[in-house]
């Protein structure tokens, strides 16, 4: 299978994408603050959608960062400590970003169900977004220190090996590699999470496509948090794999495709959550063509994610 991107491409991609989490979270937070001033719930909804999409887009940013680090390895004038400090700060802010994205999604899901935004969830997202902006700015700052003599004056700020982050990628890697039970346990959970997620996707999207009938869209909408729960399990266990053996994945074409399809499936999930035409769909009615296409694409994308995950050792070079 032809490669999608070589190491240099991925390093470029990292330089392009790495601005999205910082600017995107500030934008999402800004919209949220504006919605308070204007007392506009529609704006609030948009800010939650932005925060969810930015959380999604941060995955390729983190992943391509590992490829960029591999490309820099051993080059003169590059401090491994600076890279590690950036990596740890990036991982910490990535985790915060995913939690923010999850609560933003949960607010959207609740809003669809109860018809209005719930105050508790809205303030949770607000606080998390503020924390994320702080964390992601720090990660960006450390990233700039890796190779920007104009700001560091040719001198690195002198971060310790683990930086100032509350989490260390190196410690996670050691933990996974030194305890033989961790990898198989994560694999098992990854398969369980996948089944849970796909069960939800199957019902919701087969309903839209028209194979399942007799259930209103509003009733199957209740299952969506279980799908995200399955994704959460797989995100965490997947990150264990990636951090422990990133060089198996960064250069793996099957992994590249998996990430691309995952991004599209994530956008699809957001549309499913807020989709107006389907929401009004009674038990016996057929979905409009847009709904059928949405459902069919969700099924194809999620099967594609599974396919490229399973094919990591065969098409690519993992394991």
């Amino acid at each position, binding site marked *: 299978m032809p490669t999608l991107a070589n190491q240099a491409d991925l390093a470029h991609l990292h330089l392009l994408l790495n601005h999205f989490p910082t600017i995107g979270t500030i934008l999402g937070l800004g919209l949220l603050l504006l919605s308070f001033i204007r007392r506009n719930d529609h704006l609030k909804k948009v800010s939650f959608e932005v925060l969810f999409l930015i959380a999604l887009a941060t995955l390729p940013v983190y992943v391509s960062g590992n490829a960029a680090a591999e490309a820099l390895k051993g080059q003169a004038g590059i401090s491994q400590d600076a890279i590690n400090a950036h990596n740890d700060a990036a991982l910490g802010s990535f985790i915060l970003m995913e939690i923010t994205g999850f609560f933003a999604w949960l607010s959207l899901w609740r809003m669809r169900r109860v018809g209005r935004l719930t105050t508790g969830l809205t303030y949770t997202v607000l606080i998390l977004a503020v924390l994320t902006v702080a964390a992601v700015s720090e990660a960006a700052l450390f990233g700039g220190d890796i190779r920007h003599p104009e700001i560091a004056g040719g001198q690195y700020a002198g971060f310790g090996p683990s930086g100032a982050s509350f989490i260390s990628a190196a410690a996670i890697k050691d933990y996974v590699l030194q305890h033989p039970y961790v990898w198989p346990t994560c694999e098992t959970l990854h398969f*369980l999470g996948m*089944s849970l997620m796909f069960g939800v996707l199957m019902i919701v999207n087969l309903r839209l496509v028209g194979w*399942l009938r007799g*259930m209103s869209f509003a009733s199957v909408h209740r299952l969506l948090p279980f799908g995200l729960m399955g994704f959460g399990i797989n995100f965490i266990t997947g990150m264990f794999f990636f951090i422990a053996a990133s060089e198996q994945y960064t250069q793996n074409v099957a992994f590249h495709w998996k990430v691309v399809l995952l991004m599209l499936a994530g956008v699809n999930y957001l549309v499913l959550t807020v989709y107006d035409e389907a929401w009004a769909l009674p*038990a016996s009615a057929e979905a409009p063509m847009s709904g059928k296409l949405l459902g069919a694409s969700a099924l194809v994308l999620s099967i594609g994610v599974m396919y490229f995950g399973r094919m990591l050792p065969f098409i690519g070079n993992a394991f």
Partner: protein
Amino acid sequence: MLTTLAQSSFSTWLLSSNSIWAYPTVLTLHTFGMMVLVGAALMIDLRLLGFARAIPLQSMERLFRIIWAAFALNAVTGTMLFIADADKRGPELFFWMKLTFVAIGLVTSVRIRRADFQGGAEPVVVSGADKRLAVISLLAWSAAITTGRLLAYVG
């Protein structure tokens, strides 16, 4: 007998062919069948346990067709994978545990279908005994996945 199976020309082809259509495809189909079967069973179990009660129970009856079809796919692909590795899998405790859990899961699915999916007016009241069946189904399929996955790491 197991060794004969493992040394058959079929096994040699499945394991040592470089074609993507040999071992990788059979394994991927097996994973796909697992995801579909367990996904459908989990959704029925969650509904029986009281989640997403707004979904009319009888409308989920069609999911049993998905369960049987996915099981058929996995019986075929699973047999192929077993033949290829018969001498290794035959004596493996995890392998027989996995088959046992799959059997328990299937029998439970049949019993759930008989108990709660025979038509009748909505909302169907799910009895305590049927909720217990849903719990058994959840545990059996989770255990089947766990033992199946661990097969890749033992022996």
